[in-house]
């Protein structure tokens, strides 16, 4: 799984800590999400997408294999 969180976060000039605070999670969770090392729940994916003013489909890119 790849994500565009880092790219969109940079666009909105947000640090990982600020994004974590806005979403209501730990900074570590944002780090793992950006690295694609954590599969978020639908709610967390929705919350992150909402803060970054995008859609879940645009934020998370799943490889078919």
């Amino acid at each position, binding site marked *: *799984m790849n994500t565009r969180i880092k790219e969109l976060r940079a666009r909105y000039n947000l640090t990982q800590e600020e994004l974590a*605070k806005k979403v209501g*999670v*730990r900074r570590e969770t944002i780090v*793992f999400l950006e*690295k*694609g*090392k*954590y599969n978020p729940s639908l709610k967390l994916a929705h919350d992150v997408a909402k803060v970054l003013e995008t859609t879940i489909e645009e934020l998370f890119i799943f490889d078919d294999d």
Partner: protein
Amino acid sequence: MKFRRDMNILRLSGIAILLIIASGIMLGFSSDYSYFGIGFALLLMGIVAIVAIVTAAVTPEEYLIQDERSARVDEKAGYHAFCSLLLMMALLQAIGCIWRLNFNFKDVIPDLFIVGIWSWILLRWYYNRRGDAR
């Protein structure tokens, strides 16, 4: 280092201080051996509580948020620690049966308890580090 002073920290600090005062009263004013044991236990609980409160108070608040990832890590580590405990018990039982050791489970309960706690702590650390991309 910033020391947080919110209501929870103050309330728990009060309880810890009360525990230490109660232990002081029991240890200082009682000659009964059983009260001495209780007093010592209360003192130990008070000291552990103070250490835990100070650790929590100096830890930034964002590290203490229980989000879905930390909850998932805790659950997974707890489940696997429980499995390792069951495996240990099965192994001990098997060893006892094969070598006819006349094994008594009561004797190894403290050891099993330690295995369970340490398995949980280590697995929690490991899963927290590894992430969960499956």
